C-alpha cells in the first residue's frame, strides 16, 4: 500500500515483492543448473576423458552458459516497476538448455 495521504503512482513497487521473488527464483534455478553442470563435468574426470566425453561435457557447459545469459536478460527486465510477461522464446530457450544438458549427460553415461 502507498503511504497514507498519497495516491499510488505507476512506479509504486508491489508490496508483495513479486518481482524480487521472481528474480530470486531465477537465481535459485541458475544455482541448481550450475550444480548439475558441475556433476556432469565430474563425469569426465572419472571416465578418464575420451574425446567424445570431453566434447559432450563441453557442450553441456555451453548449455549452462546459454541458460545463464537467458536468466540474466530476464532478471534485468524484472527490474521494471511492472515487469512484462516472460516471453515464450525465453521459456522455450530454457527448456532447450535443460534438454541439451540431459542429452549430453546421457552421451557420457552411455
Amino acid at each position, binding site marked *: 500500500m502507498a503511504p497514507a495521504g498519497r495516491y499510488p503512482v505507476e512506479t509504486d513497487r508491489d508490496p508483495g515483492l513479486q518481482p524480487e521473488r521472481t528474480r530470486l527464483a531465477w537465481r535459485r534455478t541458475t544455482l541448481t543448473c550450475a550444480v548439475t553442470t558441475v556433476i556432469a563435468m565430474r563425469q569426465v574426470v572419472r571416465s578418464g576423458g575420451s574425446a567424445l566425453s570431453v566434447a559432450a561435457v563441453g557442450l553441456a557447459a555451453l548449455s549452462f552458459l546459454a541458460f545463464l545469459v537467458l536468466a540474466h536478460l530476464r532478471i534485468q527486465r524484472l527490474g521494471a516497476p511492472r515487469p512484462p510477461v516472460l516471453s515464450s522464446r525465453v521459456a*522455450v530457450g530454457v527448456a532447450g538448455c535443460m534438454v541439451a544438458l540431459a542429452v549430453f549427460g546421457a552421451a557420457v553415461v552411455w
Partner: protein
Amino acid sequence: MSDIGRLRGARDAVLLWFAPARVQNEGTTPDYRFSLANERTFLAWIRTALALIGGGFAVDQFLTNHLTHWVRVVLSLALLAAGVACTLRAVNHWMRCERAMRRGANLPVSRFPASLALLVAVIAIAMVAVVFFGWAG
C-alpha cells in the same frame, strides 16, 4: 478423446510455443503479479527437472560399487528421461496457464504430478533394493 484428436492437440500445443503472439492476442492481459507467479511455478518445475537430471548423473557416478554397469545405465537414463519430460511439461503447462488466465478460464489440471511422484517412488524403491542387496551380496 480419440488418439488422432489427442495428437492434433499435442501438435497445436507445440505450435503455440513458437507463436507467442497468438497467445498475446487472446483475451485480456492479467495482473502482472499472476504472470510472475506463473513464471515462478515454471522455474520450480525447471528446478525439479534439474534435480532429476543431476540425480541421473549421480546414480552413474556414486553407485559404482553397488550396481553393475547396465543397471546403472538404465536407472540413470530413466532419471534423465524423466528430467526431459518434466522440462517439456513445464513449458507446456506455463503456456496453458498463461492462456487460461488471459481467457479468464479455469487453470488446467493435469495427471503429470501424480505420474512423476509414482515414477520417483518406483526408482527410489528400486535403488534402495539394489543398494541393500548389493551390500549384502
